């Protein structure tokens, strides 16, 4: 028999009391951990999109910002067009190092000519590209040939087929990009030449023709010369090139970020209320439990337990329950995030990536600490008060 065993027995043999504290701790840890996991996961997803683009600015047709964001984040096909001569206008602006055009296309929903039900297609210009080329370089010869495509991590060749069918044209999947848990995972990358060839052949091969407007492009990726401020370039483009919107990297996906911030605010308020409620419930449970156990604790004092031991005993019980509840809550969140990953992405309409291990470890530690401090705080006053009582007073009804 020792104090640790006494703590264990008190915790395991008082089911209701322990259960309430356990579930309070579970909530106290799971709610902030789950919310932070999702928001950090969303943030990590956005970061991946930004770094994959590898550009300082993304220039899109005016009014198409949200459509392009949705396409990049969720892989939801979007088409928007602007004149190709914008490329030349922007290339001539002082401070521009590189520009590269893109075509944004889509496969047909449910059409027999396309292997995938609905897929975002990005066509790029190999001559000017600076975002995919470095990655392709790691995969082999660094170029995509005619009728060759690069797929996001979820793009695959249909079973028992040798190629992917796009508007009736077979294309060979040369390689897959690493998983990003963003729209890029469902995106097909091909060269302009391949896209034009598929469009040309689609009139005879596909149920519906793929139309790529002549001398039109969907987006321009821009890399700045060193020392040029992105916001100055955004202002210059706004002044000198009409009908386009330049999105600065940090501001890129601004709409989604705004949604994320809005979501965070709501969550923060809800979280604060939930935290206060949980601390209050836990405090109440401890107060009631301490009162109910007054005589028992008085007996301990009479038998020779110093005040600090009674105080420590009550806090140790709280800590054990807090850690058990918090660990369960965190494990539950991780399990939900792992098994219902797609549902989270679907509901939030936002990319979601598990944060890097170091951040995840910090989040877990934070969740445990929040529960530990909250439950400890709730138990502190009742434990202190009961431990300060005279043994005879504590034992009196």
């Amino acid at each position, binding site marked *: *028999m*020792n*104090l640790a*065993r*006494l703590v264990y*027995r*008190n915790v*395991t*043999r*008082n089911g209701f009391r322990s259960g309430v504290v356990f579930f309070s701790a579970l909530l106290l840890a799971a709610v902030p951990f789950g919310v932070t996991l999702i928001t950090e996961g969303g943030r990590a997803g956005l970061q991946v999109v930004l770094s994959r683009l590898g550009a300082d600015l993304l220039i899109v047709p005016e009014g198409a910002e949200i459509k392009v964001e949705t396409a990049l984040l969720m892989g939801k096909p979007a088409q928007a067009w602007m004149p190709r001569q914008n490329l030349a206008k922007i290339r001539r602006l002082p401070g521009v190092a590189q520009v590269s055009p893109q075509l944004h296309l889509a496969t047909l929903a449910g059409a027999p000519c396309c292997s995938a039900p609905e897929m975002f297609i990005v066509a790029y210009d190999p001559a000017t590209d600076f975002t995919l080329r470095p990655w392709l370089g790691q995969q082999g010869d660094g170029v995509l040939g005619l009728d060759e495509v690069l797929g996001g991590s979820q793009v695959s060749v249909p079973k028992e087929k040798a190629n992917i069918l796009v508007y009736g044209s077979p294309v060979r999947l040369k390689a897959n990009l690493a998983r990003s848990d963003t729209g890029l995972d469902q995106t097909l990358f091909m060269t302009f030449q391949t896209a034009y060839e598929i469009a040309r052949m689609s009139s005879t091969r596909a149920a519906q023709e793929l139309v790529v407007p002549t001398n039109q492009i969907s987006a321009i990726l821009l890399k700045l010369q060193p020392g040029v401020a992105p916001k100055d370039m955004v202002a210059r483009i706004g002044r000198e090139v009409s009908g386009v919107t330049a999105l600065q990297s940090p501001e890129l996906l601004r709409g989604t970020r705004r949604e994320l911030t809005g979501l965070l605010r709501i969550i923060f308020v809800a979280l604060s209320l939930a935290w206060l409620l949980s601390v209050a419930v836990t405090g109440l449970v401890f107060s009631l439990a301490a009162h109910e156990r007054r*005589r*028992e604790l008085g*007996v*301990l*004092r*009479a*038998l*020779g*337990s*110093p*005040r*600090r*031991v009674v105080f420590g005993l009550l806090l140790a019980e709280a800590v054990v329950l807090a850690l058990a509840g918090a660990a369960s809550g965190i494990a539950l969140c991780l399990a939900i995030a792992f098994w219902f990953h797609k549902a989270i992405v679907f509901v939030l309409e936002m990319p979601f990536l598990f944060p890097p291990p170091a951040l995840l470890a910090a989040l877990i530690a934070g969740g445990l600490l929040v529960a530990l401090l909250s439950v400890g705080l709730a138990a502190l006053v009742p434990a202190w008060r009961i431990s300060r009582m*005279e*043994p*005879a*007073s504590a*034992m009196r009804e």
Partner: protein
Amino acid sequence: MFDLKQVTKIYPLDGTRRVTAVRELSLSLKRGEFVVITGRSGSGKTTLLNLIAGLTRPTAGRVELDGVDLWTLPDREQSALRNWKMGFVFQFPSLLPSLTTLENVLLPVIFRPAPDRNEVTDQAVKLLEMVGLADKLNALPRQLSAGQQQRVVIARSLINEPEILMADEPTSNLDNQTEREIIATFEKTHSLRGVTVVMVTHSRYPAIRKARALEMAEGRIVNDSRS
């Protein structure tokens, strides 16, 4: 051994009303005595026991054990004193419901620094044998009768081999047969181990040989006699 000097204990009832449980009481208890404190309900006998044991602080006066004022000691030393020198048997069920019989008997040991685990466990088993509960080592309190629970409490009160045994109406909820057995256990402990016993009991106090009887009324000792 114990010296109570002009001890008064007043309890607050509410904001303004107070009740005086013990009034300017002076008393000396000698080592090895068997003291029985009797009196009607509300006469202050339980408060007197609590004062002697250091379980409640006197409102006025001093409580000394071997010349040391108990209330000048810090909590740690006072607790150690109770743990080492005193054993307690209470009127109410005082076993911890989450612990087995054996664990309850061992409870006072956990407040001692580094006890020999095997030795104290053997001692606890012997004490449970002494009170006739050797077959109930792993029973929980709710599985024992009131009399059996009280006998476990007596075993617990002796685990640290105390010099003084404090008992507050230890037989009040028990039948006559069990009461006789419990009192016999106290007498046996007193005579065999030389333990000082201070026992509070109701007015029909049991016949105990060589006991010192203190009768209380309205917070004062009104009769101090020896049988």
